[in-house]
């Protein structure tokens, strides 16, 4: 495709260099916006940009066409410097119909590039979007934005005239026209998309041909049409050298499990009940039976965790994933694993709630639930990945800790990490820490609750081992012997031992990385997916000479041993969370610091700008 991929310098139009750009594709949920965005992200990454993506789609599988609630969008920010977030305000919005324009126009910067498909602005769609008149005829729109009214549908149909497909199928290729056009505008190579189309439609030559033509037509339209006076170049980002791939959080979690399965040579039983946004992990693992991962689609959330407890009792690694409503149902199972001291890992891909809530939108409001939402004293280890790629390492680490300490481990991911993608420097699996697995086989001196001195782990025994036949269960156990005990002092001791065992996981936590000065005015403390937002805001302020630093907690229970010392080095502590203030309560209670929260629960990441403004306010308050 030498013509399509020719360097922009070869064409007559002016190319302007940018540091970064924020682009959003928006349309009906049937318009293929997710695949369009994913392909554009791949093109951007191929050209060496750093990037972060934000897919955003309705909960309905086939929402009625043209409606506001049926709008699906995919946003990404890409740049020649490190990119930490999908961006707050848009440089470019592609609106495939009136509803998409109505929902998303407010996020477009003044003077931003606005591309609309005029074919969709017919009366029926205008009515559905609640427009009294056609907004495209409003001169104000043209004054405010660089508006490009293009009949994308017609141009796509014309380009596909010779392709042997029905009108409906041809019309569905219009998203690739948009992709081609935006690829030209931002000088992104279309080769990866051509390759993807070839693989995706390998058995449907006509559809492949149609999509390729639509893509190229869009690209050439940008190049030759008089209306575009300039295009934009973005230099490759200075990324650490190595081989990269794009990865979503859910896939990274699944692959982290596979890495642990291969390292330990243990069977993994993955029990799951379908739930958004966790199901992709089940789909991914079901593809990789060669790793000895046995996926079990259970009858409900309770059976899913039950199955992995049974597997752990059998000497396998038990892993399950769900989202808030399912995690609530798993509470009794998690407590059995606490009592029986079996190694299981539970992923909570958090979504907006309560109850069914907003199934496809993100939130971080399950922290207190996983810490405290079970009957009685029920300590578990809690970890949280910071980025999609980090999910790989966190999944592996969760299994390592669970097996080493014979303890349930919960991983708090969320909808944003789950489906968001980033360029990921592929790790060498050999560099992952070892996961030593010791099964007790010696009957001499064996007791089910005789603990390891360093970790307090009880022995793991595979049924089938002669001479070690024993019984465990949910009733309180006598210290060491593991027989059922109703003794008051023994119960008190066992409650403390279970808590102490989890506390000792602190010895696994490396020193906390502080991004910024080791003492100063404001420390921003985050956990989970707020990493990008916080880092972007803090680095902007640091460049302006402000004494601001940030840390991102990957270990939420136990907390890092050096955390108290770090907190005391700053005047103010700010804790941004996509909840009503959960970690901030814990920090205040544990360390008696006057931490304040920045809380937004909109089903979306917190905008960088809001974090920045809050820090600036704290700095002003200090003066």
């Amino acid at each position: 495709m030498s013509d399509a991929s020719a360097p922009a310098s070869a064409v007559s139009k002016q190319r302007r260099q940018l540091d970064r750009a924020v682009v959003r594709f928006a349309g009906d949920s049937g318009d293929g916006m997710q695949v369009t965005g994913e392909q554009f992200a791949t093109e951007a990454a191929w050209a060496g940009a750093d990037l972060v993506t934000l897919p955003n789609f309705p909960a309905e599988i086939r929402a009625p066409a043209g409606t506001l609630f049926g709008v699906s969008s995919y946003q990404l920010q890409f740049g020649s410097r490190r990119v930490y977030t999908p961006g707050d305000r848009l440089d470019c919005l592609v609106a495939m119909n009136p509803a998409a324009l109505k929902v998303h126009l407010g996020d477009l910067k003044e003077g931003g590039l606005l591309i609309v498909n005029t074919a969709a602005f017919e009366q029926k769609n205008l009515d559905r979007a609640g427009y009294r008149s056609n907004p495209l005829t409003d001169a104000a729109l043209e004054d405010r934005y660089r508006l490009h009214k293009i009949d994308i549908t017609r141009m796509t149909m014309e380009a596909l005239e010779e392709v042997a497909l029905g009108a409906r199928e041809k019309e569905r290729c219009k998203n690739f026209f948009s992709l081609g056009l935006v690829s030209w505008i931002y000088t992104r190579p279309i080769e990866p998309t051509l390759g993807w189309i070839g693989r995706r439609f390998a058995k449907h030559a006509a559809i492949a041909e149609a999509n390729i033509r639509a893509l190229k037509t869009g690209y050439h339209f940008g190049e030759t049409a008089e209306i575009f006076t300039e295009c934009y170049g973005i230099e490759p980002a200075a990324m650490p050298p190595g081989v990269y791939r794009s990865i979503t959080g859910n896939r990274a979690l699944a692959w982290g499990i596979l890495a642990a399965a291969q390292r330990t040579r243990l069977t993994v039983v993955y029990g799951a009940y379908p739930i958004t946004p966790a199901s992709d992990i089940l789909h991914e693992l079901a593809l990789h039976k060669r790793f000895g991962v046995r996926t079990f689609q259970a009858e409900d959330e309770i059976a899913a965790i039950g199955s992995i407890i049974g597997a752990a009792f059998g000497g396998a690694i038990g892993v399950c994933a769900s989202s808030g409503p399912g995690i609530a149902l798993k509470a009794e199972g998690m407590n059995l694993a606490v009592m029986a001291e079996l190694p299981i890992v539970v992923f909570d891909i958090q979504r907006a709630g309560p109850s069914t809530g907003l199934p496809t939108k993100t939130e971080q409001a399950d922290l207190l639930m996983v810490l405290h939402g079970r009957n009685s004293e029920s300590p578990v280890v809690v970890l949280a990945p910071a980025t999609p790629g980090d999910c790989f390492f966190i999944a592996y680490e969760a299994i390592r800790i669970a097996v080493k300490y014979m303890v349930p481990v919960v991983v708090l991911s969320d909808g944003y990490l789950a489906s968001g993608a980033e360029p990921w420097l592929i790790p060498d699996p050999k560099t992952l820490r070892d996961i030593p697995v010791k099964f007790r086989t010696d009957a001499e001196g064996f007791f089910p609750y005789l603990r390891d001195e360093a970790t307090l782990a009880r022995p793991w025994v595979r049924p089938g081992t002669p001479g070690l036949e024993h019984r465990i269960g949910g009733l309180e156990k006598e210290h060491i012997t593991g027989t059922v005990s109703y003794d008051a002092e023994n119960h008190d001791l066992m409650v403390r031992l279970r808590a102490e065992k989890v506390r000792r996981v602190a010895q696994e936590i490396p020193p906390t990385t502080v991004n910024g000065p080791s003492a100063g005015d404001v420390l921003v403390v985050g956990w989970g997916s707020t990493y990008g937002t916080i880092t972007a805001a803090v680095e902007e302020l640091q460049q302006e000479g402000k004494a601001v630093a940030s840390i991102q907690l990957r270990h939420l229970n136990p907390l890092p041993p050096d955390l108290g010392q770090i907190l005391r080095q700053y005047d103010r502590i700010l804790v941004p969370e996509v909840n009503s203030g959960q970690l901030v309560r814990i920090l205040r209670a544990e360390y008696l610091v006057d931490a304040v929260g920045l809380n937004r629960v909109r089903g979306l990441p917190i905008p960088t700008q809001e974090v920045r403004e809050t820090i600036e306010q704290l700095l002003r308050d200090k003066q």
Partner: protein
Amino acid sequence: MSHPAGETTAPRKYTKKDFESDQDVRWCPGCGDYAILSAAQKMMPDLGLPRENIVFISGIGCSSRFPYYMNTYGFHTIHGRAPAIATGLRLARPDLKVFVVTGDGDGLSIGGNHLLHVLRRNVNVTILLFNNRIYGLTKGQYSPTSELGKVTKSTPMGAADRPLNPCAFARGSGATFVARTVDRNVAHMEETLKRAAQHHGAAFVEILQNCNVYNDLAWNVLYDRESKSLHELRLEHGRPLLFGPVDDRRGLVLDGPTPRAVRAKDVAESTLWVHDETNAWKASVLTKLAPPDFPIPIGVIESIQEPVYEEILLEQEHKAIADRGPGDIGALLVSGDTWRIG
């Protein structure tokens, strides 16, 4: 807890005593569970399995204390969830022989969904459901098998809900082995448990069991000598369905799909219903038989062969490995679209 040390996997001859744990049995004196435990312990040596390869999994309730008293591997889990836990264990360890012990409340009320699905999937587990038609451990509430109108602590004016038939439930769930036995008939229990344990797939045994504290003589129809002689129907594969006193034998005939009890001497022997464990339609009729018009069948109601869930999954795993070799995370990480920087 003490453990016999230094055993090997060499095949050894077991006796009942080898399956008795050192725990004091804590059921109420006179409880039917004692007889079930004894029958199970007596039957185990006949299975010819190494003791260490046997696991008993239970939920919550009186019956669910069972694993503590068996000197095998055991796991006393959560109310109603034993089938799910057993399924996970079988997935991880298809080399183990797994039993599930449950009751009418544990298995048919709080755990009804799990029981349904473990049977539907035909997971290779042996399920013993102790049916005493009452909640014993929580001190006497009615259960899903209590009769309509049953007066208990929670139903002082009588239960308003209709009872569930465990064997009909099991069959409806797709069980491939369904049997019924009685706690007061140790020989029959031993034989039935052994048949169940040897079944390939999910085997379901309803054990009619007496709670002498909260629901004494709930199965008196099969305890009282005279009543038993009138109402117990012993099922034997290939034999006609005959019951009743020696001097006045009754038989069952099928009138189209409808069963009828007749005096044996009034009909030709060739017209009697002959038990066929592999006949699903007739098994369905058998589960529904009950007094006063019919006897209670005990024995193996149905036994058929169907694919076993975990074996299919394992075949898929073996095929995936045979086709493409074992998984390699290093190769997976660099599969698909990648690009080099620097």
